């Protein structure tokens, strides 16, 4: 499965509040109704807190969710 780059420039404006660290791209897996998708998301290098932006949630992810729900 090819990795999907799923973060954008605005994501870089967020820092991890607990660790006070800038986020960095990291591989992650999104799953829904038994299907897995490899993606690259912005993540806190210390605690691993991972960001899913509004653009991603309401864009690509929503389209995939609908596809899978109708499957």
């Amino acid at each position, binding site marked *: 499965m090819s990795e999907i780059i799923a973060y954008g420039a605005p994501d870089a404006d967020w820092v991890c509040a*607990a660790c006070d660290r800038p986020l960095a791209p990291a591989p992650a897996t999104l799953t829904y109704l038994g299907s897995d*998708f490899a993606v690259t998301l912005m993540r806190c290098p210390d605690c691993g*807190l991972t960001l899913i932006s509004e653009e991603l949630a309401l864009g690509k992810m929503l389209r995939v*969710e609908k596809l899978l729900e109708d499957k």
Partner: protein
Amino acid sequence: MDQQELRDLEARCIQEEPPRCQAACPIGLDARTLCAAVAAGDTSRAWAVLLRHMPLPGVLARICDHPCESQCLRNQAGDPIRIGALERAVAGVAATRARVLPMPKRAGKTAVLGSGLACLAVAWDLCAKGFAVTLLTGAKTLGGRLGEYPESLLPRAAVTAEIERLASLGVTFETGLDRGRLDPKRLLASFDAVCLGGDDPASSHLPPEAFDPETMAASEPGLFCCGIGMGGGAYSPIGAVAQGRKAALSIDRFLQKVSLTAGRAGQGRATRLYTNIEGVAALPALAMADPEAGYSSAEAAAEAARCLQCQCLECVKACPFLEHYKAYPKIYARQIYNNAAIVKGQHTANVLINSCMLCGLCTELCPEDFPMAATCLDARRDLVAKGKMPPSAHEFALMDMEFAQSEACFLARGAPLSPGEGKCRRLFFPGCQLSATKPEAVTAAYAALREIFPGEAGIMLSCCGAPARWAGREDLFDASMARLRSFWEDSGRPEIIAACPACLNMVEAGLPGAKATSLWEVLDHSDLSFPKRSSEAALAVHDPCTVRERTQVRESARRLLSRLGASCEELRFSGKRTKCCGFGGLLSEADPDLAATVGSRRAAESRADFVTYCAMCRDRLAKSGKRVLHLADLLFPGPDLDPAALPPVGVSRRRENRARLKRTVLREIFGQSPPEPGAGLILHLAPEVAAVLEKRRILEDDVRAVIAHAESSGKKFRHRQTGRFLACHGPANATFWVEYSPADDGFAVHNAYAHRMALKEGRS
């Protein structure tokens, strides 16, 4: 299902029964196909139909006395099809030289005495069976009474052509014989079988003293007869030919030394084929421009086009599922049987088996009550029992059921504030689908029930197990029922009041002894007052298929609608004949596209907004874009100004709703405080943010839960410029994200969004 059960089942589907014309024809001519061919102008195919059934078609087609016409269904919508005249028209133009292929020659010398039509038919059939045939007559010319027809109707040349054809097939003709040569008993000495014809004036003094009309066998072994009782005005060409055909078959059996009678009973029985002629416009028979010449080809085509092409397909016409597989229940029963019989190889009927909506409409429409739903459900159980049910077939529905029965959603409580702890006289069972799609309606209905039955009404939030039953998973269904039974017993065997008609059916099946009543009946019989409907536009009532056998529920729903001031219209398929929305039997799992077709076709049956009283029907029909109300929208109106326009509720939302409903009921009715993350947090929402939340169907409680989680765990992001926080929380299915900042007494909410996909743990 064993072979015998399959045959019994197949026999209940009447689609392959002959049409009335064919059943009425003594030789079983397929007049329906003939009409289709003539209507299409396909003379050679029409002729082939005649040739397949008729001996001497060049003669019989011109003079047949067509008993079929008196039985023609067209008679009930105009005049019967003039089948006799159509045959004549075909014989007049067809390339009548088509050959009859005899069977390989067989041992057996036969003699036919007489040359009338019946005798010629015997000779024709015996010849086609491969026997040597000698036709003997006292007459100088062949044909007997055929010579009495006017030339315009039966040209002498047509008779000659058929006799020549017999000769070319090997029939030997001996004419002008004296009486001595025609003594049947003497002939039996030199022939293996002899047939006497009564319809040849030159031989009519010869009918045997006694014969069996079923086999045409005379008392003397080897002696048969035909053309009997055809004297004077009683002459029937088709009757004569039918006797000849019977006699030829008996001679064949006699020569093979097998039973003359076995398997012949029931020939010519009445057909069971049913053809619905509702809405068929009456059409008179087409008049002939020249009655003496008969129909021209063009006239014949027009007349044949009036043929109704009788067939049943009552079920197929009404059900997109039965239509989809391009056959009819008799064929499907065979496919289902074969599917079960396969040991290795593709189970090609699995999707068919899993696509039946189990709604019972076909059985309702079927003149023979063909049990399609029971057949498919049995087949599902069989697949499950053999471990052959595809795991994906019902996985999602079963997962959803499991969730509805899980700790997050399940709730069972006796009547609140009642003296007997955990007891109740009524148990409200709203069902998992109403809970999932209209949780506010559940709390409102529960309030109504507590008003009607003060101190008596308990509640159980769960799933009745219908998905398990439809999936053939009796084990899971039994487990669902066991849980219900256990609470029902403990709470004092209350009357179960179900909002969903499917639950009602499941309770009846799985909990015999329990009194189960529809919520709509209870509300109908109550004196509660309900708000009047503001709109005067008529609503089309869509009865859920699960109330097909529940007249009282249907009537209660209508009385409630009338109390609400709603004007209603009835769909053509309603009440006992209502149609499924596409959810029944888990069709939407097995074949989502077909389920969508089912929903949109149903929705298109009226331009009016629909109203229904099943949460799944509401959702499935709404999915097609139809404006649909649930009865609860009218009885217990919520904040939505136009509930008919609400979109269907998505999978995750359904789960959130169920889980939240449990918390709401516990908190508001039973005074318990279930862990409600963030309860009491004060939120500040600008109107535009509130609108975003509304559009995205995110509740303030969802937002509170996110903030509470973020603030207690510290898991949140901070924006470099604005200093706002962004955090997420996914207690059940959806993950909610909230952008917020602290305010004096609480939090300001700047944005919120949600997704259903989940981030998989354990990979960093």
